[in-house]
Structure formats: structure tokens, C-alpha cells
């Protein structure tokens, strides 16, 4: 199962490598989103600093949704969803592989976004460990939830709009927890950042369990 999952992830990364969508479009776009926020808020510095944690995760959500869209477009574009469904690889491996592929791309995205937020919004990092742990947890949760919702919208003609509609509410708790944990890590609030960070790991674990069991059902389609 693991071998097959790695196979799927490697293939996805290779597709990314050939088309360079993450690095070429999504990452600049996510940075742009950060800039746009600055515009929308008229560069009110205090405000941006305060909202930095939340904006980071909003940008991840935005860029990540595009990545997930793309991860499933790749599977469905040359005609339809059939090949993915006919795949000789088991459903749990497909799920894990896809999630891994998305995870790595989102990590990459965050490696660009992180410094962006620090520079643009002028934040100060108090607690590195918490920061990294919550980034990890949030990204894991994001990837598995994303792949679950992604496959539900995959292959449909309305996927581009249905995916975010399903994904955003499901991810709202992650967004929330991520923002609070980051704010703690930035020293903006004294609250228990670790609780939030662990919440994200719990969400990730739950959805992984659901995905491994249910991905087979989700692949079926009328």
C-alpha cells in the first residue's frame, strides 16, 4: 500500500515538475493575495500585523484549493474520470498518495508564503516550535480534507466552483485553529496555542481514517 501511495505521489510531483504550476503560478499568486490584503486594508500596519496569522492561512487555503483542483484536473482531463477509477492501485493508496503529493506542494507553497508574511506584515516570531508544529498540523489537515473534497468534485463539469464550496466549510476549523496558534506563536495572544495545534493534528487524523475507509466509495460515480 505504501509503495503504491508513493508511486502516485511521485507521479503527481512529476506532473508538477513538468508543468511548474505550483512554483510558477500558485506561489506568486498566494504572495499577491497577501499584497491585495494590504491594499484592501489600506496598509494599516497594526491591523495587518494582528491579522497576519489569519491571512497566512487564508492565503494557504486559497493557493491550496487551486493545487487540489489541479491535482484532480490532471486525473480527469483527457476525457474523463474513468482511468483514475479503473486504476489498478487500491483506493486507500490512491488517497494517501494524492494526499502526500498535495502535502508536499502545499509545504512548498508555505515555504514561500511564510517569509512573505514575516516581511510584508512585519511580525515577530516568539515561539518557533509552536509555529512549525502548527504549520505541520494545519498542512496535514488541509491536504487530507482537500483530497477528500477534491475527489467528490472531481470529474464534474461544475468542479471548479463546487470544490471550494465543499472545502471551505470543512476547513474552517483548521483555518481557525491555525490562525489562533500562529497568533500565539507571534506573541499576540497568551492563549494555549498548543491546544489549537493539537486540534489540527486530530482533524488530520480523523480525516485520514475516513479517507482510507471511504475513498473507494467516493471514486464511484453515476
Amino acid at each position, binding site marked *: 500500500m505504501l509503495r503504491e501511495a508513493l508511486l502516485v505521489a511521485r507521479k503527481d510531483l512529476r506532473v508538477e515538475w513538468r508543468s511548474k504550476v505550483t512554483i510558477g503560478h500558485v506561489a506568486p499568486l498566494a504572495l499577491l493575495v497577501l499584497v491585495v490584503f494590504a491594499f484592501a486594508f489600506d496598509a494599516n500596519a497594526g491591523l495587518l500585523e494582528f491579522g497576519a496569522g489569519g491571512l497566512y492561512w487564508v492565503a494557504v487555503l486559497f493557493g491550496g484549493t487551486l493545487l487540489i483542483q489541479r491535482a484532480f484536473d490532471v486525473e480527469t482531463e483527457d476525457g474523463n474520470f474513468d482511468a483514475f477509477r479503473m486504476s489498478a492501485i487500491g483506493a486507500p493508496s490512491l488517497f494517501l498518495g494524492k494526499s502526500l503529493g498535495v502535502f508536499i506542494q502545499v509545504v512548498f507553497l508555505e515555504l514561500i508564503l511564510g517569509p512573505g508574511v514575516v516581511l510584508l506584515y512585519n511580525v515577530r516570531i516568539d515561539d518557533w516550535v509552536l509555529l512549525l508544529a502548527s504549520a505541520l498540523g494545519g498542512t496535514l489537515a488541509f491536504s487530507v*480534507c482537500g483530497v*477528500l*473534497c477534491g475527489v*467528490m468534485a472531481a470529474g*464534474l463539469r*461544475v468542479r471548479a466552483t*463546487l470544490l471550494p*464550496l*465543499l472545502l*471551505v*466549510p*470543512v476547513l*474552517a*476549523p483548521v483555518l481557525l485553529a491555525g490562525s489562533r496558534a500562529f497568533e500565539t506563536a507571534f506573541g499576540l495572544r497568551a492563549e494555549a496555542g498548543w491546544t489549537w495545534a493539537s486540534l489540527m493534528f486530530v*482533524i488530520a487524523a*480523523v*480525516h485520514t481514517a*475516513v479517507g482510507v475507509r*471511504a475513498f473507494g*466509495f*467516493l471514486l*464511484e*460515480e*453515476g
Partner: protein
Amino acid sequence: MTQVPDSRHMTATTATRVLGTVALVAVVLMGLLGLVVSPADVVQGQAVRMLYLHVPSIWIAYGAFVLTSFSSALFLFRSRHRHDGGRHHDRLAGSAAEVGVVFAGVTLVTGMLWGRVTWGTYWQWDARLTTTVLLFVTYLGYLALRRLPADPVIRGRRAAVMALISFVNVPIVHFSVDWWRTLHQKASLSVGRRPEITGEMYWTLLYSTLAVTIVASWLIVHRYRVIRLEELRDEEALEALIASRLREDEAQA
């Protein structure tokens, strides 16, 4: 000549008519109790009467979503050996979710009206309000998934998984007042704690909950039957379609 409707093709039975009547009576009584019998609040004045719709509605919505998740789980894991392939669970999940969304909507609307009176604005960025709106949209997404054109069984499976994922937001709404500092009321009725409201208000609230429950069950039963009838209609249309397809081909040949 008027045709006697086939009993299969009606959404009402004697039992549900009784249920409907009871629901109607209960609502009238609830109105009486809420608007006339129970007193105005010391702080909130007349506005407090909103409580009797606001709070039971969201409880019913919670209940409906629990039902949705439960039926969805059964549909996913326990339907293999049912003669109907678990369609029953699926229909129940769908109709409960619809009713849940409606009542969550009622809470939102009454809450906003209430907010206008007590806080002076329709909306506050308060954790409970925000999470409630999220819950509402989550299930809108679920319903959007159910409306996709696809084979009912397969669509049902997708929707069922979505229902399980979506449920996470219910406890978040409920506990939001404890997890965050909020403007919104903390839980005033909960197991193992002394109720903070008393007397007529307490009883009126309990009674309204009962009344709303009856109304919701009535709605769910009807929605269930409508869905069932739609399926029956599709099945019958299918037989006709098969027949016409064969006829068409014979004509061509």
C-alpha cells in the same frame, strides 16, 4: 370522473395527518405560551420572546444533523444486506439535512432580528454567530452535492461521506461560547448544571422545544416521502423509457 389517488402516491397517511394536526395545535399553543403567558425579561424586555423560536430551532437543527450523520453511517456500513440497498437510510439523511438547514436558517434569522433589538446591529463577529453561519453553509454544500445528477446509490455514498465530515462543525457551534469569549449567551440549559432561567420562561422553552420537534418530525416524514415518490416516479418513467426505446428501435428496423 375523479380518479381515486393511489395511496402509494400520497405523502400523507392517517398517522401523519394526526401528527400534522398535533404539530399545528402545538405551534398555536407555543405561540400562546411564548407571546402571552411567559413574562417579559427584566433585562431584555419583550425581545426575550424570540428565545422560544431561536433556541429550539437550533436544537432541532442539531438533532436533524445528528440524524443525518447517523443515517449516513448506516448507509455506508450497514446497507449491504438490506433489500432496498440502504435507500431508506439515504432518504432519511437527505430529508433530515434539509429540515436541519431550514431550522438553522430560522435560528439565524431570529438571532439577527434579536440582535438588532438588543445589540443594535444585525450581526456581530462573535464566535457563535460565525460558527453558526458556517454550519449553515456546510450543509448547503452537502445539499448541493445531493442535487448533482448521478446514480442515486453513488450520489448517496458521496453525500454520506460528506455528511460525516460535515458533522464536526456541530459541536464547534455548541461549544463555541465556552471556547471563546463571546457576546452571545452562554449555555443556560445543560445537563448537570442548574438552569439559569426559571419559572414560566423555563417551561415555555421546554414546551417550545417539544412543539418544534413535532413540526420537524412532520416535515422530515413528508420530505422523506416526497423523495421516495420521486424515486418511484423515476422508476416508473424508466419502465416507460425502456418500452419506448424498444418501440423506437423496432420502428427503425
